[in-house]
């Protein structure tokens, strides 16, 4: 029992929460920090590119409107991508054009990119905790 505890303690990364924060801000950064280079680079390329596709397809970065729960949930999913979201907001992108034929597709790309990055953060957490 003591040996098992010692082994688990030895594999837990001391900066788990910093890794998760980095993984949220820059997609793939958590995996790169943990030495999973191939995965980190893949996430670093794929997720911002998917988010950029969503902006290009005239999707909308939803505002946090508590009175409209679904809009607030979409906003929370958008934020999941981290720095690309903040950059897009700073550059006044993601206004969305509701009459564009690709509007709903753009929303799907933006929302799913954020949700996938949340999964990537959870994966980085598991690796840092020595579970994978």
């Amino acid at each position, binding site marked *: 029992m003591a040996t098992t505890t010692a082994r688990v303690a030895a594999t837990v990364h001391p900066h788990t929460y910093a890794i998760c924060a980095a993984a949220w801000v820059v997609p793939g950064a958590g995996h790169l920090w943990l030495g999973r280079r*191939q*995965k980190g680079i*893949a*996430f670093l390329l*794929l*997720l911002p*590119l*998917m988010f950029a*596709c969503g902006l290009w*397809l005239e999707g909308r970065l939803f505002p946090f409107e508590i009175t409209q729960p679904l809009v607030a949930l979409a906003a929370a999913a958008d934020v999941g991508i981290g720095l690309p979201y903040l950059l897009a907001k700073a550059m006044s992108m993601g206004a969305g054009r509701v009459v564009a*034929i*690709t509007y709903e*597709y753009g929303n*799907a*790309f933006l929302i*799913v*990119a954020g949700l*996938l990055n949340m*999964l*990537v953060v959870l*994966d980085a957490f598991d690796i840092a905790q020595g579970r994978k």
Partner: protein
Amino acid sequence: MTSHLGLMVVFAFFVSAVFATLMRESAGEQLRFGARLMGGFVVGGVVLGWLLYVLPF
């Protein structure tokens, strides 16, 4: 590049690539799993589209 099928294929590509990278370790396994997943998404989407097409509402 605004056709429904084209955008669905692009969407399926991104989702499959991220899932394959998350769930498999070696590059070969990721490629095979990602291709299978993407095929499943695209075929599933087309089949579901045709099934919904016949619904009257």
